[in-house]
């Protein structure tokens, strides 16, 4: 930090990620609001607290070990190499705390480590929050929090090391390209949620005796409207956080500074801003048509539209982003109801469709549209191709999403620690507390009447 211009670059980058973190905080606000809006009156507070406690639990575990996984696992380990030494990311590294750099910081992490960690952490919350909505009104909070730590601080960050790292083995061998995390956040979290739902089972009353599904309507349309708008707002921060703001991308002689995606390949903030809006629009337009103007599904489709185009939104033409998102929403909407009917899956907020299927589709279709594009500035890495993207989507949704979700839900279920008792589900998780509150209020009211008499 002894050169004014270089220091400005470092401090700008530090501020850039800090800003994305603040913006992304809104994602969690939005998730909490729309989850509560979907839950029934008898479960509101439990639903809220279940998702709120994701914040501290995923934060501390991502600090303790999640961050280290990202830097240590790009080779697998065991797929193309061993563990990579990442001293700055260990939970006991001096560089995880306030640090002035210098000789104890040979790679220059002192000022960036904290904000970069926090940006990734907000992705971790998102992954856990995606799962949270699907399982409301019947999962035990403790079981959910264990699962939240697994998806938020272990599995998603393994997939990020593999496919969302400049030197991840999936980028090198498969040409995997997923600029704004269709697969690495959304497909994996949707797959994880689906795995849990297979074990957890539907809410009581969700399916008729003939196997057809009843609709449990969201309880508060205004709250989910605000929630999803807030979530869109936070999603801007998510997109910006996926970029590196300033990097010399010129190979060979010369210097050319640009924003890059996470693979250090060039893009511009302008491009991703337009594509974000066009893919949101494509999702909303198609969502309104397929759901026949249903507000919840239309808003959700806006989100699904962005997710469907996110893998390639650093490079798509804006009208390509629009078309990719609209087609994606058509597919995921149909798929949601087909899976619900066929497997009796009760996904309370539609998160498996909006995140899981849209993310899977987004990764796969990017393989066709970006076929032959370099996946990385490194010319030795595989280029983007449909097979590599398809395998990548399977790894994200299936290998690191569905299978661990199903497996750990099975383990919790075997100990009777996954689902709440039937009686509690029927009366509602908040009912006892609500009755106690009413008794307390009655007692205060009586005391006030007595005071009036005196």
């Amino acid at each position, binding site marked *: 930090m002894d050169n004014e211009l270089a220091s400005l670059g470092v401090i700008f980058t530090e501020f850039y990620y800090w800003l994305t973190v603040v913006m992304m905080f809104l994602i969690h606000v939005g998730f909490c609001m729309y989850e509560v809006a979907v839950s029934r*009156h008898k479960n509101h507070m439990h639903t809220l607290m279940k998702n709120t406690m994701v914040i501290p639990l995923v934060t501390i575990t991502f600090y303790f070990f999640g961050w280290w996984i990202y830097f240590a696992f790009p080779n697998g380990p065991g797929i193309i190499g061993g563990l990579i030494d990442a001293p700055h990311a260990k939970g006991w590294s001096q560089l995880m705390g306030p640090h002035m750099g210098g*000789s104890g910081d040979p790679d220059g992490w002192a000022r960036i480590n904290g904000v970069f960690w926090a940006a990734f952490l907000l992705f971790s919350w998102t992954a856990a929050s995606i799962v949270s909505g699907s399982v409301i009104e019947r999962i035990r909070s403790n079981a959910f929090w264990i699962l939240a730590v697994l998806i938020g601080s272990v599995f998603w960050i393994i997939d990020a090391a593999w496919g969302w790292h400049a030197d991840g083995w999936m980028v090198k061998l498969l040409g995997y390209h997923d600029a704004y995390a269709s697969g690495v956040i959304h497909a994996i979290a949707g797959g994880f949620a689906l795995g849990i739902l297979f074990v957890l089972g539907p809410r009581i009353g969700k399916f008729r005796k003939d196997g057809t599904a009843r609709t449990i309507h969201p309880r508060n349309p205004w709250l989910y409207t605000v929630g999803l708008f807030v979530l869109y707002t936070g999603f801007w921060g998510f997109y910006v956080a996926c970029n590196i703001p300033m990097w010399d991308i010129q190979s060979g002689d010369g210097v050319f500074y640009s924003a890059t995606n996470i693979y250090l390949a060039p893009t511009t903030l302008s491009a991703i801003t337009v594509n974000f809006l066009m893919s949101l629009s494509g999702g909303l337009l198609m969502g309104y048509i397929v759901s026949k103007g249903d507000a919840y599904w239309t808003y959700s489709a806006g989100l699904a539209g962005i997710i469907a185009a996110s893998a390639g939104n650093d490079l798509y033409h804006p009208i390509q982003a629009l078309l990719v998102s609209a087609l994606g929403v058509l597919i995921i909407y149909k798929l949601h109801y087909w899976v619900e009917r066929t497997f009796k899956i009760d996904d309370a907020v539609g998160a498996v469709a909006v995140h899981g299927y849209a993310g899977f589709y987004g990764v796969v279709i990017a393989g066709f549209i970006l076929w032959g594009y370099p996946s990385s500035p490194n010319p030795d890495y595989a280029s983007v191709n449909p097979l590599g993207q398809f395998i990548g989507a399977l790894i994200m949704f299936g290998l690191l999403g569905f299978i661990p979700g199903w497996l750990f839900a099975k383990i919790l279920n075997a100990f009777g620690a996954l689902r709440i008792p039937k009686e509690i589900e029927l009366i509602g998780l908040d009912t006892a507390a609500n009755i106690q509150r009413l008794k307390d209020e009655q007692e205060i009211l009586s005391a006030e009447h007595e005071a009036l008499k005196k």
Partner: protein
Amino acid sequence: MSTGNFENWAGEISEIGAIYPFVGTEFVLWLIGMGLFILWLVIQYRSENKQLEDERKKYGNAETIKKLLDVENPEQF
């Protein structure tokens, strides 16, 4: 006396390194943090089990459940 690595900001700032108190205790702090995380999960697991069981005993009979189902808002209960 200072709990930190330095007693003033004079000199070469970049050579100060870590600026939090008790530098050198990071691994112990990490162990304490991990321990507290696990302890929190255990305490919460027991507490949640007890709460669910108590509520099941108190409100879990068929008659009470029927009453509560008829009035989704317990303020009408």
